[in-house]
């Protein structure tokens, strides 16, 4: 049981990191990134390839982060003039391009067969159950650093400008803010976090293939951010946990219903996940937490 919970918590941390990136890009800066799975895939593959080439943890991690930052900044730069929906389409196109590249450049990525046998970091220090705990601690430390980074961004003047851009970029531009450069930096900041997520993903699973990076990654990230409350970093942690409780908890519910055949039980499980999300959107449309805003003390308003 402990092993299972540790594994699920690691998966939650990875999906929380993806959601954290989305929260900076979309939650705060208003840049709808439907193609987040493409960036996640690219960073995962870079981390995997560098680990397979024998580079240690730190170098793989840094390479993955750099990939995330550079790709995100480039995509934000070339699609600078696109707004909301059109920007979302551009990111989706980018993700599709990444997917096709991964599928077809077999010499590098293994194509549809993927990359098996990715070395796991720190495996010299522990094995079996205790390695799972060690990896969990590694994931927790990296996620905590990302979280602190995201919180600092959110509370900084930079974060305030992002929220201003989200609400009305014309107003922000009128006030002398360089809209393009803020957008590129916001997107790149998200990309950096995706780099960490990609590193953890590839080294945790030890095997990656293109089917792991589908639109469902985007869907889970949006679900986590929406459930947690758009713009709130603390909230999305809760959101990511709720999504995983829905995904995994339903497996156990199914075990309690032996009268269903396997096909029906699997379909029922997916229906329950859907119903859970709908209920969430009906009863908590603004999410569990609210986004960070400056407090105004009572005395100050006079």
């Amino acid at each position, binding site marked *: *049981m*402990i*092993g*299972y*919970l540790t*594994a*699920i918590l690691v*998966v939650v941390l990875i999906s929380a990191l993806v959601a954290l990136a989305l929260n900076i890009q979309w939650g705060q800066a208003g840049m709808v990134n439907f193609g987040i799975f493409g960036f996640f895939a690219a960073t995962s593959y870079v981390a995997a390839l560098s680990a397979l080439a024998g580079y240690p943890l730190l170098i793989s991690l840094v390479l993955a982060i750099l990939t995330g930052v550079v790709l995100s900044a480039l995509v934000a730069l070339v699609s600078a003039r696109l707004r909301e929906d059109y920007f979302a389409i551009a990111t989706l196109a980018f993700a599709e391009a990444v997917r096709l590249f991964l*599928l077809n450049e077999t010499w590098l990525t293994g*194509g*549809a*067969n*993927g990359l*098996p*046998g990715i070395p796991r970091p720190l495996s010299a220090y522990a094995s*079996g159950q205790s390695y799972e705990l060690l990896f969990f601690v590694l994931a927790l430390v990296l996620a905590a650093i990302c979280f602190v980074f995201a919180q600092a961004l959110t509370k900084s003047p930079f974060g305030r400008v992002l929220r201003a851009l989200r609400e009305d970029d014309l107003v922000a531009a009128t006030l002398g803010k360089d809209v393009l450069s803020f957008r590129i930096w916001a997107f790149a900041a998200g990309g950096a976090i995706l780099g960490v997520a990609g590193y953890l993903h590839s080294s945790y*699973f*030890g*095997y990656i*293939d293109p*089917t*792991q990076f*589908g639109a*469902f990654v985007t869907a889970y990230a949006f679900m986590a951010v929406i459930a947690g*409350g758009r713009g709130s970093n603390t909230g999305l942690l*809760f959101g990511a*946990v709720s999504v995983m*409780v829905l*995904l*995994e*908890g339903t*497996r*156990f519910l199914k*075990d*309690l219903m032996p009268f269903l*055949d*396997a*096909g029906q*039980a*699997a*379909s029922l*499980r*997916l229906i329950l996940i859907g119903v859970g999300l709908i209920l969430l959107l009906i009863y*908590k449309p*603004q999410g*569990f*937490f*609210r986004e960070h805003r400056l407090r105004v003390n009572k005395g100050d308003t006079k």
Partner: protein
Amino acid sequence: MTFNQMNRRTFLGTTAAGVAASALPLPALANTGPVKIGMISPLTGSGGSYGPNIVKAAQVVATQINDAGGILGGRMIEIIAEDSETNSTASVRAARKLLDVNQVSAIVGMWGSGPTLAVKPLAIEKGVSLSCLGAADAITEGDTQGLIWRFQATGREWGVPPAKAMLAAGHKKVGILAVQTAFTQSMIAPFIETFEAGGGEVVVQAEVKPDQPSFRAEVDKVMGEDITAVFLPAYVTQFTSIVKEWYRGGYETELYTLTIAASAGVNGGGKFITAVGNEVGEGIHHLQPTNDSSSASYKEFESLMGVEAGTFLPFSALCADSLVVQIGAMEKAGTSDATVYTKEILAITNGPGAATAGAVNLLNAIRAGQDVNYTGYGMDVSFFPNGNLKGRPFGHFVIQNGIDVELDLV
């Protein structure tokens, strides 16, 4: 605007409730309780049309064994089936649950190369045996510690026979329209190699994604070339849509595919033919490792599954075989510990010993201390020591009047 804020007490309460709920399942009882067998099968997603019958095959065989008194001195077999969602990350979560929470002794019915490769290291680490239905070579490569068994021909074995069949039929210029999965991709290179070595030419090649809403562009691209036949490695869902486009386009090109995609069954009850109708299916060629549907053990399997005689059930017979082989090895070794009992697998499948078919027969023969050579439900099952199934000739079928007609063996 008001925000609904969750306070700390509610947060902690909900989290605790969630954790408690996930801890509900019963603790495992080691050597006296049931022998737990896990399954990670594609019940939803692009492999979703195969999963339910794969799981059912294991369940009916387990029920048969349990009714005859179980194994290892009366222990019952319990099948715990998880949905792989045809996706490797979901499969890993499912495997964690089976290995850590349910503490299964073996995993069978692991379908798809990607999911199998993702679950493989977990099974090896836990010392649990994994029987898979995936074709990628990498599955049985590396140190598997004798735990990984592939109840399926490798991709290479799948690619060569269609090329030979097309050459034999006199096709010189052909195309390939393949679905992008590890399984189908692994057969393309051997197909091209064999076909070109035989003097033919692959003129055009195109790929489709498993979940594409329409295949029209790719079908037009391939069929529009100057070719006489197309090789279409796909699963039944995509093949059905591709064939509809082919028929609508009025193309004369002959279609060659895998039996798992295009089976009509000798009774016309196959999923493909019921979806497209006899007229559309007429003249489609398909191949697969021989599955002797007239054998007594296949007839027994059909009656266990409760289907009409002559129905083709893709992957199911092999999944049932994988369960029987694992159970047989447990009985022979006297333990459900996979690191011990998997050493008996070759002795059961490769002989020497009397050819034995059926789960109950096999268990009785083993209990009687006889040497056995297990012949599976659909075909003879023998292994290489690395866990790969030994190759068999491929049957070449063509659909005529809505039923499969066997042409020859390749």
